[in-house]
């Protein structure tokens, strides 16, 4: 926290020498002694898990790059060589490929956690915005990386996603040719994608440092969503180490078990079989689908019956996250004390899953097979197209209508005066609770 005094005392001669020149040991020690709210639950451990994910991806990626060849004629074969001939190459590649999925599972939970407990609200807007930047960079990096094996899905994914740029009026076509480095996706494209895929994780790393800097300046949120008064800091906080290092460590072990199940027992479950077919510019796969973690946004892209409109909606779905802190009008942070908003939040989570499901289906396929339907505007009502549209409508309504409106209209529950109170007195006794307006003084 911002007001946290350093308690580090250099003991050895080397530490003393270093501390007056580059106080890096002090920085680490202060981080570990950071007063942290004592009521953080397991949803909060995903920050640590994400750090681990980034390290795993960078480390495994560096070693894959040593055996990968970014050339359209050789890329596919070089990946197969990694799988068959390079010592442990299969392990490194499966860790890297499934690691991307694990990264996205963790980041989605991390983001929904932030959404539920109002972690984006003042004074933590910068933490949230930097997190959105990281999320956007993650999507870009994952896409670039998916293209590298130069399989059918790689090639056609690149074709479809770069074509989005062509939707921009007037400058779209020249920019598209510039991005691809030629009239079509080809060797130039693969080379630059490899270069950028290697670069962006280090950019992400830099933004993660800023994310943590902002976190330690504004202080951590907690499940109750209230600021800890200065005078209660000693009672309501505990040092990060050993309390949260151990808790995060336990969560990391559970997470690694899930990770290992995928890597060792179902390494291709989250991928697409078509990516084991070498790229063929003359044949489109029967159904082009992105990786699972992009499906909700892909569904939104398809929902709009206009090319440019679809692109705007898709980027808007990510872009709206950046202005989220100013769309929520509620003075109460945590949805624990917002019974109405909690319901809308749960629907939002369900809608996100529905969008993901729709993104994996053919748009014209019926949602309920065999049920009679009628045509509405340009598609059958009983089709994934229309289910996607309804879900897309809710997605945007959640941010632009529900958030501002519910925040003004709902009556929140009484929020406790301190984070210890709900634990010590139980929900029935809230005698010392103060009305929601007390939050203002924070």
């Amino acid at each position, binding site marked *: 926290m911002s007001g946290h005094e350093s308690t580090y005392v250099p003991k050895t001669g080397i530490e003393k020498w270093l501390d007056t020149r580059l106080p890096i040991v002090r920085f680490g020690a202060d981080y570990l002694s950071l007063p942290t709210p004592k009521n953080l639950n397991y949803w909060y451990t995903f920050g640590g898990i994400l750090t681990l994910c980034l390290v795993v991806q960078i480390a495994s990626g560096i070693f894959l790059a040593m055996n990968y060849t970014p050339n359209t004629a050789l890329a596919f074969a070089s990946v197969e060589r990694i799988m068959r001939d390079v010592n442990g190459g299969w392990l490194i590649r499966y860790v890297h490929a499934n690691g991307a999925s694990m990264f996205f599972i963790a980041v989605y939970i991390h983001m929904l956690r932030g959404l539920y407990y109002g972690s984006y609200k003042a004074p933590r807007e910068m933490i949230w915005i930097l997190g959105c930047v990281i999320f956007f960079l993650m999507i870009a990096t994952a896409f670039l990386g998916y293209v590298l094996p130069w399989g059918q899905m790689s090639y056609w994914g690149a074709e479809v996603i770069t074509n989005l740029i062509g939707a921009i009026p007037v400058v779209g076509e020249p920019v598209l040719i510039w991005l691809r*480095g*030629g009239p079509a996706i080809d060797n130039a494209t693969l080379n630059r994608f490899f270069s950028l895929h290697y670069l962006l994780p280090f950019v992400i790393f830099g933004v993660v440092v800023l994310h943590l800097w902002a976190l330690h300046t504004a202080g951590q949120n907690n499940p109750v969503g209230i600021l800890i008064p200065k005078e209660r800091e000693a009672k309501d906080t505990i040092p990060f180490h050993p309390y949260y290092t151990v808790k995060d460590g336990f969560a990391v072990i559970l997470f690694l078990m899930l990770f290992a199940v995928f890597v060792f027992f179902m390494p291709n479950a989250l991928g697409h079989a078509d990516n084991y077919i070498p790229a063929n510019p003359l044949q489109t796969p029967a159904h*082009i689908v992105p990786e699972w973690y992009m499906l909700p946004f892909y569904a939104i892209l*398809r929902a709009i019956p206009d*090319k440019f409109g679809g692109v705007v909606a898709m980027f808007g779905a990510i872009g709206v996250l950046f202005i989220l802190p100013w769309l929520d009008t509620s003075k109460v942070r945590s949805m624990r004390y917002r019974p109405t908003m909690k319901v809308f939040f749960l629907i939002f989570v369900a809608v996100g899953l529905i969008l993901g499901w729709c993104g994996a289906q053919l748009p014209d396929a019926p949602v309920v097979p065999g049920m009679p339907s009628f045509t509405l505007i340009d598609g059958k009502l009983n089709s994934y197209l229309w289910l996607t549209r309804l879900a897309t409508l809710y997605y945007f309504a959640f941010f632009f209508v529900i958030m501002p409106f519910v925040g003004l209209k709902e009556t929140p529950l009484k929020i406790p005066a301190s984070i210890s109170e709900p634990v010590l007195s139980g929900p029935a006794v809230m005698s010392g609770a103060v009305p929601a307006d007390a939050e203002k003084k924070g």
Partner: protein
Amino acid sequence: MAESVVTEHPEGDATRRDFIHIAAGAAAAGAGVMVVWPLVNSMNPAADTLALSTVEFDTSKVAEGMQIVITWQGKPVFVRNRTPAELQRVIADNNASDLKEPQTDQERTKEGHEPMLVVIGSCTHLGCIPTFGSGDFGGWFCPCHGSHYDASGRIRKGPAPKNLVVPEYEFTAGSTIRIG
């Protein structure tokens, strides 16, 4: 002339110094652009990429009602020899109300070679390759996002914004075309 070396503005502003600041700033900005431009330009298509710009093809190989796919600049090009019935239908649809990008069939083919349609086989929506002879208009259908093209390659239904692109080409000798 020593007194003119530092000319004070009535308000006390050193105008020469301002000039130097602005000139230096402008030079730095210009230099910055000059450094960035070669980097940006290096991402444009290279000379060898641009050199692969023409391809020749004998269209007499395409039987009536058939389509051949050739590669040009890494992209598929459909060469379709349309049947009289198909031709009749697309000409009848020249003024159809559902054309998003109105074009007559004559504008999309070469005079004297009306049955032969040459288009880039890349859906103008997101670049998938549409399937031959399917969809509501008997031309092409893109299964990915549901765009329907007629046998003239014109977009009739679905999210694609434009007709299938007719590349620059000409008949060089008899039935041989040169694309690009």
